């Protein structure tokens, strides 16, 4: 038995919004793989829960009219990994969420929950930052769209307006982000399974037509600061530059101007900085290869 005060179940987005307005103190529960653990630990014990698990309209991946990739917030990690649109257009997201927890966790945990937790180590978060994902929130006054970097306010806090009954309903990957772009994600952890990232690094690249110039490089980290973050200085030094090993090295060293990791029991600040440089380099090399470029 879980120590919960009450459970309210929503079957549609409208019901969830209504329940949220009626019970502003209640915690939203989606896949349950974080909330129920925290309830067991006592951190969320005695709380009221609003379950959105049964809102089937919030599951699945599709292309919208503008050819943005639309991922319903309740889509589980394993369904993202095996989705044909994801595999074709943004494979790196499927690979990143295939590193969350273990197989059973990936069959239950959702991308909406992964982002709404607001934690920096979430395996989906750095990739969503690197692809400039848009978060769709639905409340009593309709829908609101936010760039993912503005969605994260501080560690553990995201921009969801409870007073308006908002819940996160989808995550969009704009066409401008995925078109002609390939990426790579590296998770550094002490184990291969059931592990929280010591640091995570997601890079994506669009090369010029002759594959000799970096048209656009984007890089984002998890656990390089209190929230997932981009490394704009590193991107600036390499954008428009020729694809050479020297430029890749310069790029990877430049991430140190942007990131701000901390000492924790998982790893020291110095170690995180050290691996952040190496991860940037390796992820960029792999991304270039996936674009068909040569170094």
């Amino acid at each position, binding site marked *: 038995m879980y120590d919960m005060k009450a459970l309210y179940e929503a079957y549609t987005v409208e019901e969830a919004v209504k329940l949220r307005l009626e019970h502003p103190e209640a915690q939203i529960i989606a896949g349950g793989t974080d909330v129920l653990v925290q309830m067991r630990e006592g951190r969320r014990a005695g709380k009221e829960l609003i379950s959105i698990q049964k809102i089937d309209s919030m599951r699945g991946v599709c292309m919208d009219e503008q050819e943005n990739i639309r991922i319903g917030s309740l889509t589980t990690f394993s369904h993202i990994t095996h989705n044909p649109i994801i595999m074709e257009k943004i494979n790196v997201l499927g690979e990143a969420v295939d590193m969350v927890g*273990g197989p059973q966790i990936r069959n239950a945990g959702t991308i909406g929950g992964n982002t709404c937790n607001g934690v920096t180590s979430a395996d989906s978060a750095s990739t969503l930052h690197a692809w400039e994902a848009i978060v769709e929130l639905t409340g009593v006054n309709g829908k609101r769209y936010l760039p993912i970097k503005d969605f994260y306010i501080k560690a553990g806090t995201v921009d969801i307006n409870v007073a308006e009954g908002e819940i996160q309903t989808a995550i969009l990957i704009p066409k401008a982000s995925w078109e002609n772009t390939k990426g790579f994600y590296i998770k550094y952890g002490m184990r291969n399974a059931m592990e929280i990232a010591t640091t995570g690094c997601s890079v994506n690249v669009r090369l010029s037509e002759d594959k000799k110039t970096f048209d656009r490089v984007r890089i984002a980290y998890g656990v390089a600061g209190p929230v997932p973050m981009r490394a704009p200085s590193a991107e600036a030094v390499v954008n428009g530059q020729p694809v050479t090993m020297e430029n890749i090295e310069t790029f990877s060293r430049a991430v140190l101007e942007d990131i701000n990791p901390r000492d924790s029991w998982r790893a020291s600040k110095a170690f995180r900085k050290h691996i952040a440089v190496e991860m940037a380099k390796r992820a960029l090399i792999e991304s270039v290869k996936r674009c068909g470029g040569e170094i």
Partner: protein
Amino acid sequence: MAQYALVKCNINGKDVEKIVDVRASLTDMLRNDFRLTSVKKGCEVGECGACTALIDGEAINTCLYLAVWADGKHIITLEGLMNPDGTISDVQKAFMEETSIQCGFCIPGFILTATEIVNSGKEYTDDELRKLLSGHLCRCTGYQNIFRAVKKTMLRRLGKNEEAELVR
């Protein structure tokens, strides 16, 4: 104040109905209300996989799944793998043949995940298989024999019997 809900689902091929406490996990419901004690209470935080059941064909840690969410679902536990004539599944047989079972606590979970793996009809590499099995902790550390049983069953299902016999 206790809060209850009606759950209608299919467990091991049988349609069932039960009034459950909304605070119950699916582990609680399967063990206490249906006496399906192959579903083990292990870590209860989704790390060890001992409580795994198949929900609509996907392996799920039932300790992190509310009993009320089972409404409308098809659930398979180890008990459901036995055929009506009392014979057991190919996965279960392989686990016995390979002496994959030591204390046995983790085995129901492992067998259900293995069932999802072989039901996919795909051929996985050794690394992929290890990753697919990584959500289960064996306290006796007998992973190698478990791995072999799963690999052999996978190959046999794909008609590669000779290859299966060569798995060491």
